[in-house]
């Protein structure tokens, strides 16, 4: 039976040491859908992605389902192999390992396509450099995108893809993030747009503090993460407009009302 949801979190709790950071999240992402999570600094956005990827340092309860399969206890690389990819906000530098070599080791597709994407992302020279060593903010984000484009996952986590990126870079990063998510399609002679959309069934979960990336990336559903809980499910552009006008204060108000409501 085909599962309607590609990705699901059920009553997902995360602790770092003794501190509970995420307090029972529920989230469902359909195939082909891109979700955005807004949240103030320190709300646990990065913790959410790291814990879902299976990184160490987090104690987790609840369930993570991918393609209907429980992956809550799988090692990181098995999650990746099943088709989950992540763009790190601040990836570590790997000394002595060339970017080309890493991609050749990890990516599904390679060769001509690698050089083509590297050219498009202005990363040709970087292929022969050590991974993330001495890269600027924008270069790091482009290198993450390049790795993901060739890894070609079905579900993509993007952790603050616009942070540390200058204006010049953000358009390029936005364009290829859209491309990675299968959100930017051009009509082809032998296929209608409708058919193409059905074929490109990438899903995404995008985390952002500022929301700037939404000027470039088409997202379908927006959420707010605050106080360790997810709230709202709305049009991301409208949410961003509200946030830009009223800030996260507005969300606090909303949260408080809901909590009052629960108490009653």
């Amino acid at each position, binding site marked *: 039976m085909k599962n309607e949801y590609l990705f699901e979190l059920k009553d997902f709790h995360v602790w770092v040491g003794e501190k509970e950071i995420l307090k029972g999240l529920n989230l469902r992402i359909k195939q082909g859908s891109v979700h955005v999570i807004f949240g103030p600094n320190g709300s646990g956005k990065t913790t959410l992605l790291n814990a879902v990827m299976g990184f160490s340092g987090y104690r987790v309860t609840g369930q993570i389902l991918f393609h209907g399969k429980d992956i809550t206890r799988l*090692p990181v690389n098995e999650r990746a192999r099943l088709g989950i990819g992540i763009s790190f906000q601040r990836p*570590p530098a790997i000394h002595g390992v060339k970017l080309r070599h890493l991609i050749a080791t990890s990516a599904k597709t390679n060769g001509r396509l690698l050089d083509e994407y590297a050219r498009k992302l202005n990363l040709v020279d970087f292929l022969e450099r050590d991974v993330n060593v001495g890269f600027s903010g924008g270069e790091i984000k482009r290198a993450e995108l390049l790795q993901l484009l060739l890894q070609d996952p079905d579900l993509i986590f993007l952790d603050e893809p616009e942070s540390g990126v200058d204006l010049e870079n953000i358009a390029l990063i936005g364009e290829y993030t859209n491309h990675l998510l299968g959100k930017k399609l051009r009509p082809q002679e032998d296929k209608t747009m409708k058919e193409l959309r059905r074929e490109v069934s990438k899903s995404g979960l995008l985390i952002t503090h500022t929301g700037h990336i939404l000027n470039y990336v088409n997202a379908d559903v927006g959420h707010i993460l605050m106080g360790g809980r997810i709230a709202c499910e709305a049009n991301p552009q409208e949410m961003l407009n509200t946030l830009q006008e009223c800030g996260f204060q507005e969300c606090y108000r909303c949260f408080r009302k809901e909590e009052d409501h629960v108490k009653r």
Partner: protein
Amino acid sequence: MSNDKKTLADDLDLSGYREDAPEHAEIEDLSRLSPEDQQVLLMTGIDPTGKQRYGSFFQKDHTVVHCRTDFEGAEIMSVTAARKKYDGLKEYWGKLVPADKDVYTRRAEEHMEHGYYIRSLPGAQVRYPLQACLYLTEDKLAQDVHNIVIAEEASNLNIITGCATAPHVRSGLHVGVSEFYVKKGATLSFTMIHNWAEDMAVRPRSAVILEEGATYISNYICLVPARDLQMYPTAILKGKGSVATFHTVLLARPGSLMDVGSRVILQAAECRAEIISRAVSTGGKIIARGYISGEYPGVKAHLECKGLLLSKKGNIHAIPELEGKTLDLDMSHEAAVGKIAQEEIEYLMARGLSEQEATSLIIKGFLSLDIVGLPENLQNELQQMIDQTDTDAM
């Protein structure tokens, strides 16, 4: 040198080694060697086809079985032949490494089982390396050699030396005295790769002297177990503006002891030196030494010593030393011993690599050195050697 007394252990029992080896027949072409031997040579930086080499020297046990060069700008021959030809090499022999320095240099002087003599002619540009291999094929054999390398004025000389044991050999003793003369304006890049049997004891004793404007680049790589390896080559920067660089890459497995350092004495104006070492222990003991002595105002030198300790049975002891003997010096060092960052492993795992693959990739990256001034093909060969290192046991 005063700290030799501390450094040089005389703890090896030398009585268990055989001094006599059978004579071996000449080999016209190294590609005629058995496939097993050729494989060993390849992993020691020696190309049996000699295609990308300007010349080759091959010593098997106590016999020089092969020696040739097609290149007119350099000489390569056994040091015995060179001493006959050049009146005992009086100007060079024993001038940098005195015969009475320690028990090993005395052995080398006494036994003198050849070694190589390589000299580039003035102004010669040796684009491809010359290769020299010292090969041990008899178990428990002692091989004592003395090598002389001379880069004449304004020449550019490039040498790969591989020291290895044949696949069936378990133990032995290798003692090698090496003296390097880098003359005015010359560049010598010297890459030494050790590929020993597990129970080998190894005692190289080397020194280098640099004249005005000379450059010396040393690369030393040992990725296989050796029971007891101890070396501490010295470069003396005597000429104005001379530059010395030492790169060392070590991998010690359980049962190995590697006591390896590099020493640089800066004695003239505008001299520069850099010592960089990378040490990985999966259970063996590594003593990573470095010593820089600044003896002339304005010289610059840096010492960098990094270790990855991957087993609680292992031990990495970094001993970086700086000694300033005059005013206005610019000398520094940094040393670090640690583990692989979990964050790096998980980053690679998020790309689909298993934990073991990720660890291996990070270790190999740690060991790779981008060596400035090394010809690209040689850099690629060294990288391949590191890539092929079996890290699965780690």
